[in-house]
Structures are given as structure tokens and as C-alpha cells.
């Protein structure tokens, strides 16, 4: 039953089948929808494979900014957003905020668009 733990691989295989065996035979007007389906499956597979690690990484980065706060990802995101909006405790020049945001973005890119090399 170990296959049930490899849902990301199942999705990847299904996507490869769609792209390699089915899409080339589709009429022109269906190729874009097929490409979107393949993209959605790839994102879902990467989310399954990498999502938990990415969220843990983001939580660790945000917790380092707010060491006394409860380690709740959603709460810490909102705390950071409020601080940035209200300018209460941060300065945009602070290197540590920028480094935290870069960490978050790189993790997200790895899931959404791994083909896009991070510039930040």
C-alpha cells in the first residue's frame, strides 16, 4: 500500500501521460486547456511533496522575527503584515526582513514555478 503515500508521484506520472501521450493528439483548440491541466497537476504534485517543508520553513523564518509569539503560521503572517502596514516596529531597510521574505518567496517558487530561477 506504499503507493498511497506517493500521491505526488502518481500525479506526476498522470501529468507525463497527459503531456506525452494525449496532448500531441489533441485538436489545436484543446492544447491550451491540456497544458493548464498539466500545469495544475504539476503544482499539486509539488505541493504534496514540498508544501509541508515550505510551510515549516516559513514558520521558522517568521518565528525568528517574533520569538515571543505563538508559532502559528497564519497569525505570524498577519503580524508581519500589520507591522509593515502600520510601520510600528519595522523599517524597510532592515536586512532581516528582506532575508525572511526572500526565504519565503524561494520556497513558494519551488512549488509554483521551479523553472523560474529566483532573482532575489
Amino acid at each position, binding site marked *: 500500500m506504499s503507493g498511497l503515500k506517493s500521491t505526488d508521484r502518481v500525479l506526476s506520472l498522470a501529468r507525463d501521460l497527459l503531456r506525452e501521450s494525449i496532448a500531441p493528439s489533441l485538436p489545436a483548440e484543446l492544447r491550451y486547456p491540456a497544458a*493548464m491541466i498539466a500545469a*495544475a497537476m504539476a503544482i499539486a504534485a509539488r505541493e504534496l511533496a514540498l508544501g509541508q517543508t515550505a510551510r515549516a520553513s516559513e514558520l521558522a523564518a517568521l518565528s525568528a522575527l517574533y520569538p515571543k509569539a505563538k508559532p502559528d503560521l497564519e497569525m505570524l503572517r498577519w503580524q508581519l503584515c500589520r507591522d509593515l502596514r502600520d510601520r510600528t516596529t519595522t523599517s524597510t531597510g532592515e536586512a532581516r526582513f*528582506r532575508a525572511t*521574505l526572500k526565504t519565503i*518567496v524561494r520556497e513558494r*517558487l519551488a512549488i*509554483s*514555478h521551479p523553472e523560474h530561477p529566483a532573482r532575489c
Partner: protein
Amino acid sequence: MALSEVALASWLPSALAGSSVKIEHLEILGGGAIQENWALDVSVDGTRHELVLRTDAPTRVAVSWGRIEEYRILQAAHRAGVTVPAPVGLCADAAVLGRPFYLMRRARGEARGAKIVRDPEVVARGEELAARLGRELAALHRLTPPVEGLDFIPVPDGSPARARIAEYRHRLDELGAAEPVLEWALAWLADRIPETTGVSLIHADFRTGNYLIDAGRLTAVLDWEFATFGDPLEDLGWMLGRYWRFGAVEREAGGIGSRDALFAGYEQASGVPLRRDLVPWWEVLGTVRWAVIALMQADRFLRGNEANLELALTAHVLPILEDELLARIDEIERDHP
């Protein structure tokens, strides 16, 4: 959604003067999510006219103008000498086709960005074409409020730059979105509000993908549904966004030519030097804007209103835009310490 040729045929004589007006051809063109475009060939007393009929798509986004307003904007741009499809007629009566629509002359050319930037004629003429695009923007920006027919467009009260920051913060609040990178970028922008260089009619979506290019030459600027009054530099900043280069990243002006060529064309037509030093701020704002639009489109899917895979995938553009924000701000600070 099908159009009633019978209803259309009965309306056409009111827009096209002639004793004999006949529909020869009607075919839907590739359009956006906001509108529908139809190729319409009509013979008027034996002379064939190649037109486009433009109307609302069923899922029009509330932030864009409807077809009546867009037609008025098209008329104003045409009068100002901007290269646009010539407006032919407006039907504001929704009883004819079920929604307002207008007619314009059909221009030749390619609008798809990925094809444009790879076209050998565009590559060969890139600098000249970028300068032409600059001249078009300068012609448009000569329109300052009040503009005939455009009294429905609000005029910014105060700094257009501040107004945009406030607008995007408001949209994030409406979405209930906790997006730290966007908040950070908006704070960076708010720390450096540029002086207003003017208040003009701006296209607000002037970029590769929204003009027609034929044999390396501009034939028409399209898609005026976001036009508004704002700082002219907003149009330049949006145009220079990396995401509008369709992979030809080294050609900063829309994947077509250099930013210097774009600016030089603009200055040549406007007759005054451009505040080139302020454009990078507007580039960053443009990226924030695109990110907010992506979030809004994804929200339409998430709220269950539209089971549309394309909308669902739009949210995944966000990390690319966030990466661009962080990288571009780093570059700007390096170049202007």
C-alpha cells in the same frame, strides 16, 4: 455567447450610412476574460468594411470600464492622434444584442506577446519600434483633464502615486489577504513617494499583448478598458515590467527594445525631458498592481463563483511577482544608493 445576426443587421444602418448594408461575415476572435471581440465584415452599398464588434464577456471584471465608456476613451485617443482602431459606432442600447457594443475598424497584426517578441522583423526593428511606442504614449499623455466625453473618469485629488498605494492596500484588505511581500513593497513605495509629473489620460495597461504589430510595425493600440487619469509615468513603469517581455528579458521595453529607445521616442514626441529617475518607482508599483490583480482573479475562483482553471492557476503567478519585487528593489537601491 452567440450574437443575433438579425438584431445586428437591423441596427447596422444606424451606424453605417448607406442604402444597402449587409453582414458578409461574423466570427468570434480570441478575446480576453473581460470582453468578446468579433470579426465583422459588412458591405455598405457594395463596399466591404472590415470591422471588429466588441462587447462584454459574461464575466466582466468590475474594475474595468464597460463598453460605452471604453468607446468614449477610444474616441478621445483617436482624436489625439494615438494609433488606435478607428471608432465606427456605439450601440448603448442593451436591447439590440443583450449588452452594449461598439464597432471599430479592424487592424492587421499580431497581439500575442510570445509571438511578437520572437518575430524576426520585431527583433530587427526593435529600437525603432520601442521609440514608436514611446511616441504613442506621449501623444496619449497630451490629453489632460477635462477631456471631451470622459467626465466619467475621476481626476486624482492629490498625488496619483499615493492614491495607487492606498488603492492596492484597500484591495488587499478587501481580499483578506496576508501577503507580507506585497505589504513590504507597498511600505517601500510609501517611503519614497515621487513627485507628480502630471495628470494625464493614461492607458493603464499599455504593454506587449495590448497592441498589434504587423511586419515589425505598430498598427493599433488596443484594450482601453482600464484607462484613467493618472501620472504618465505609470504607463511607462507598467510597460517596462519584466513579466511583459515574454521571455525576451534583455529587451526591457515589452520584449521589443531598450528602455532608452522607449524614453527617447517619448521625449521626441512630448518635447520635454522625461523624469527617467522616477520610472523605477512606477515599475515597482506596476509589479505590485499585477500581483494584486492576480490575487483578485484567484479569489474569484476560491469563492466558488467561477470554476475556471485559468483563474485558479493565476495565484501561482504570485511568487514570480514577489521574486521580481524583491530583486528589482535590490537593483534600484544598488543603482541609486
